């Protein structure tokens, strides 16, 4: 964390679709890259995006809330894409328990 205390939390958001579609996924990936976000993992069903909260909210059309135990997507996404299949949902992954 910088000495100034201006630490920006980087969050991960996963976008998932019920209907796998590589073309749509690629279109979304390209769109997200315009926002200078880290789009690291994708299949033909999902995309994982990392970046600062405000930038994620703006790019994905989501609202993020800090619920104490972690962040959650509480509204959206709204990517305003022509493709109706993607995305159907967005969430912020949680850390699992190791048994």
């Amino acid at each position: 964390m910088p000495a100034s205390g201006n630490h920006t939390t980087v969050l991960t958001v996963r976008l998932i679709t019920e209907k796998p579609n590589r073309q749509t996924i690629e279109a979304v990936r390209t769109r997200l890259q315009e926002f200078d976000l880290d789009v690291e993992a994708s299949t033909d069903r999902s995309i994982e995006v990392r970046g600062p909260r405000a930038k994620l909210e703006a790019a994905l059309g989501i609202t993020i809330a800090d619920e104490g135990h972690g962040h959650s997507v509480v509204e959206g996404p709204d990517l305003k894409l022509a493709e109706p299949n993607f995305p159907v949902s967005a969430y912020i992954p949680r850390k699992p328990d190791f048994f």
Partner: protein
Amino acid sequence: MTKTTVRLVPRSSQRVTFSDYVSMPQERLSGSVAPERRSMNKAIKAFDDRAIPQEASPLKRLDVQLDEQEMADVFGDVAMEQHPTRASDDRSVSLNETFNRPAAALSVPEALQDSIAFAYVPRPVEFFAPLPFPPIENIYHLRLADVRLALNAARCHMNGWTGKGVRVAMADTGFMLHPYYVRSGLKLIPTASPGSGPADLDNSGHGTGEAGNIFAVAPDCTVFGVKHGSSAAGTLETCIDQNPDVMTNSWGYNIDRMTKDELRLNDPNMFFEVMDVEAVINDAIQRNIAVLFSAGNGHRAFPASHPDVISVGGVTLNEDGSIEASNYASSFRSLLYPGQNIPDFCGLVGRSEMSPQSAHIMLPVPPDSELDGENFPSGRSQSGWGIFSGTSAACPQTAGLVALLKQISKGLSPAQIRQVLNARSVDVTDGTTATGDTAAPGHDLATGAGLVDALRACGFAVGTS
């Protein structure tokens, strides 16, 4: 071009203060304390004149990075030789296998001799690794060789069923190439997933340790140790990318306490995560990958409750050889997936009275990790071993057994594997789980079909049992 680090040591040992540093004009210098000015400025200027990067250390030495030509310019013709970093391959670890060093002492250029006492090429340090042998601790526990015997895998190995040619992916906290694995010749491949960082860095020790349970049963399989990254679904996708026959997971979410509809209403973020993880697991099943999850340690764990997942609970092996349902392990009826009972069957797990962490199995962990020295009565740490268990141990044990089955018959489906293990596990008739279910003769909620038995399962798979 490869560069060599050379460290120049000044003649003066006079201590300097921070104020000396801030008054110095050289912007390249960094650190809280600068080199002694009078003796080092000349050297700094000499390298500045050649545009050679340099960095002053807090103790007034100067490090410079020189390529081959620069070495010749400054120190004359210097013969370099490759030298091994480590004395042995299992008592220490180093970031480099070899390093280049000059065959003879470096001659300080005449122009610098009044300020520089000597120069040398630093050798990469060795990090002293833990022993490959587990230490002796005065508490009842199993060693990995005991796990092999207890699950009846030793005789499978004599039959040639060792997991050879089978690929297992394990998602966990990280996987250090512990000397136990290296000395044993076990094939553990640390693998990063999106957002995970270095896969061989395991601050917890959980992944490094629990992987030993796979090899106890299937010593010849190849294990891809996939370090958890920024999402569980992404981590599982990385596991699938390794083209495994088996996926073993000693983790989960304590959320199987409501129906999916209720989850969607109460925690939509988690609901979508469940949907995502579920879809990735379905993808694995469609590829004929056997997917195993720990039932949990008193948790009501998802994804263990997923209908196509093989869920593994816990049975304790007592000192007198008797077995009973572990009071540390989970058993429950799923609410997320009505009709699903967890576990399907069990591996070896300790009891909760032993310690808060259920001491039962001595496992290799990175020195200084959270589980280093866990449950050692001696209090010893930094040994690179810890005694712990939970259904986290039971699941990879069972994954090892599945690897044996996959060696015998690569085409076995996850459903067929479940059938084989259901048919040939050892019934457990005593003990009560952490969630309050008591074992009884026959299939029961506490332990499912009972404790897995490698020889009986493999014999069934080849038609001899």
